[in-house]
C-alpha cells in the first residue's frame, strides 16, 4: 500500500509570476496573458552554462533549484517531467539551420529532444535517480503526476515533478491560419513541485490524479463524477473547480469555478499552473480543489487536492 503523497513545495515562472521563489502570487493574478518576464537567471544558474540554454531550460533549472532548496534534507528519488511540445525553440533553431546550411549546428539538435529538460535536471542535480519525460499532449502533466504519485517513496525521499511548455512565434503564425484556433490565447509556463510522503508545514495532499480518454459512452463530466466517487468525494463538497475549458458545472451552484487558462494562456502543460494556483488557494484556507485539464476533446486529466 503506497503512502499518501504531499506537495511540499512548488516553484513557477509564468505570465503572472516571474519570481521562482514566490509562492504567494495569486492575489495579483489577472485575466491578461501578457509577455513572460524572466528573472535574472544568473542567480540560479552558473553563467558559463547559461550560454547554451534556451529560455525553457533556464526557467526549468531555476524553478528546480528553488524546489531543491526547499526540500533540503530529503534525497531526490526521481525527476518526472511533462511537456507537450518539448524544446520547441531548439527544434526550430535546428530546423532552420539544417534547411539552410549543408552542415548543421549540433547543440540545437542535442537540445531539441523532449527529454533534454529532465536530462539537464539530472545533470545539474547530479542525480542518478528515476528520470522520465511524459509527452502526451492531452494530459501529460497528469500522467507525470500520476507516475510520481505511484512511486514507492521512502520517508526521506522526494520527487521533483514539472510541467513545462514554451510558445514560439511559429505557433502564433500557425494559430492565425486556422479558424479553429482563433480564440486561443497562447502562453508559456514552467511549474515544478516537490512531492514526498511527508506532511510538512504548508503541505497540500494529492488525494488522487489520473487521465482518461473520453468516448461517446463515457463523457468528460462522467469521468469527473466517477473520479470523485472513487475518492468518496461529493462534487458539491468541493471548494473550487479549476478548469481550462468550457466544461460546464453550472449545476454545482455553491462551488466556485475558475478558468485558469484565462490567466496563463494555452499550452499543453498549463494544468500545472492550475495546480500551482490550487496549492496557494488551499494554503489560504480552501479544503478541496479539483484541477481539470480538458483542452483536448478526447482526453481529460483530473487532479484532486486537499488540505493536509
Amino acid at each position: 500500500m503506497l503512502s499518501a503523497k504531499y506537495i511540499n513545495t512548488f516553484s513557477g515562472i509564468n505570465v503572472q509570476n516571474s519570481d521562482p521563489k514566490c509562492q504567494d502570487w495569486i492575489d495579483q493574478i489577472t485575466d491578461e496573458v501578457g509577455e513572460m518576464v524572466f528573472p535574472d537567471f544568473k542567480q540560479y544558474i552558473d553563467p558559463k552554462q547559461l550560454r547554451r540554454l534556451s529560455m525553457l531550460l533556464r526557467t526549468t533549472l531555476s524553478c528546480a533549484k528553488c524546489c531543491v532548496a526547499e526540500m533540503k534534507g530529503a534525497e531526490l528519488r526521481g525527476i518526472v517531467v511533462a511537456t507537450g511540445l518539448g524544446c520547441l525553440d531548439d527544434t526550430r533553431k535546428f530546423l532552420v539551420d539544417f534547411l539552410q546550411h549543408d552542415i548543421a549546428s549540433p547543440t540545437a539538435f542535442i537540445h531539441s529532444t523532449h527529454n533534454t529538460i529532465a536530462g539537464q535536471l539530472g545533470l545539474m542535480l547530479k542525480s542518478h535517480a528515476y528520470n522520465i519525460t511524459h509527452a502526451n499532449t492531452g494530459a501529460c502533466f497528469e500522467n507525470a503526476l500520476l507516475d510520481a504519485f505511484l512511486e514507492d517513496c521512502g520517508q526521506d525521499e522526494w520527487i521533483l515533478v514539472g510541467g513545462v511548455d514554451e510558445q514560439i512565434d511559429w505557433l502564433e503564425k500557425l494559430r492565425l491560419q486556422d479558424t479553429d484556433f482563433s480564440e486561443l490565447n497562447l502562453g508559456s509556463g514552467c511549474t515544478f513541485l516537490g512531492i514526498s510522503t511527508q506532511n510538512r508545514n504548508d503541505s497540500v495532499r494529492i488525494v488522487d490524479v489520473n487521465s482518461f480518454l473520453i468516448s461517446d459512452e463515457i463523457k468528460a463530466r462522467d469521468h469527473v463524477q466517477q473520479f470523485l466517487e472513487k475518492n468518496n468525494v461529493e462534487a458539491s463538497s468541493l471548494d473550487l473547480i479549476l478548469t481550462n475549458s468550457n466544461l460546464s458545472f453550472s449545476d454545482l451552484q455553491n462551488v466556485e469555478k475558475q478558468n485558469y487558462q484565462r490567466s496563463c494562456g494555452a499550452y499543453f502543460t498549463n494544468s500545472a499552473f492550475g495546480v500551482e494556483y490550487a496549492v496557494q488557494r488551499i494554503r489560504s484556507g480552501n479544503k478541496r480543489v479539483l484541477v481539470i485539464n480538458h483542452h483536448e476533446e478526447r482526453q481529460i486529466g483530473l487532479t484532486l487536492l486537499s488540505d493536509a
Partner: protein
Amino acid sequence: MEIFITGRGVVSALGNNTEENLQSLLNGQTGISKGSYSDFPEKYIGAVKLSSEELSDKHSLKDVYGRTALLGLTAAKEAWGNNDPSSTCRTGVISGNSVGGMDRTEKHVIKLINTGQSGDIRPILAHPCGYSTGLISKIIPNCEYANTISTACSSGANSIMQAVKLIKCGRLDRVIAGGTDGLSNFTIKGFSSLMIFDEKRCRPFDANRAGLNLGEGAGYVLLENEKSLRESGNTPLGRMSGYGIANDSFHQTALSPNGKGAVLAMHHALDQAKLKSEEIDYINTHGTATENNDEVELRAIQSLFTEKVPDYSSTKSFTGHTLGASGAIETVYSLLAIINDCVFPSLNIKDDMNKECPALQKLVRKNVSNVLTNSFGFGGNQTTLIVSKC
C-alpha cells in the same frame, strides 16, 4: 504480480510483421542498405520497405499522417490482434517516440520560414509526439488511458516500463505498450552534426566500429495481468519480469566512462526480477556501434556479470538504430529469443572489440529463459527490461 505478454507486433527494415522480422534474424539477413532513404542515397540506413503512401493505404488513411504514426499503427495492430473490448478490464496504450511527425513538419516549415505562411496546417498538427499515440488508441476498443513517453532512444523501453508499473499499481489491467519512430531528414542531419555515423554498415562491438546506422520502425507488446488473462483467455508468450531505470548524469549525449547509469539500470532490473546474474541467458544490448556506447556498455555488463558474461549481441546491426522504437523492437526480439530458444548474432564483426569477451557472431540455439535488454538515450536516460519465459 505477474505481467504477461500475450501479443506482439513489429515493423522494421527486417520486415513488416513479427514473422518476417524473425526469419531475417534467423537467417542473418540484414535490413540495412545504401540508398534505402532517397533524400540521403549515400547513407546506410535501415528503412522500412513500405512507402508512406503504402502504409496509409494499409490503414485506409488519407496521407496526412507521418511515418512515426503509420509505423506505430502497423505494429500496434499486430500486437492487439483480435482481442475483444472489455467492460471490466481497464485498457490503456502507452507509446514512446522521439521525432513525432517531423518527417511531414520539416517539409512544411520550409514554406513557413520563407513566407510566414505554412499552407495546410493539418500535417503540422500531427507533429506532437502524442499524436501517434492518439491514433493507436482509436484502434483499441474501450481504451481508457493513453500516455506518450519521450526519452530519446529509451522511449519505447520506458513506455513498456511505465505500462508494467501502472498494471502493478492496479491502475490498468492490460496495456498496448511500445514505441515507434520514422525516418526524417531532421534526425539524419542531427546525427550527422554529431559525426557519429558509419559510412559503411555499422559494426557493433567491432574493434574498428565507426558509428551507427539509423533505422526506423515500431514495436509493441500486449501486457496483461492475471485478471485480464482470465477474461481474454489469451496464451501468454512470456513475462515482463523486471525493469530498471536510472540516469547516467554525466553528459547530454555520451555515456560516462564507468557506465554508472547502465550498471544501476541493469542492477535494478535484476533485483526487481529476483534473478541472479547467471540466470540471464542473453543480453540484447543497446549496441549502437559508436565507440563510446559499445565500450562503456560492455564494461558495465562485465562489472555486473562478474562470474560470466552471458551471450550478448546487438540487433541494431540488422535494423539500424531505430531511436524511440529501439527498446520496444528489441523487447519483441527478446521475446522471440525466448519463444524460439535461440539467441541472435551481431553482424559485420571482423575484429572483436573485446577478444576475451566477444559478442555473439552466429545464431545459437539453446534454452533461453531470461533475456535482458538495454536502451540508453540522450539525456542520460538508461533503461533495462527483463523478459522471461512463463
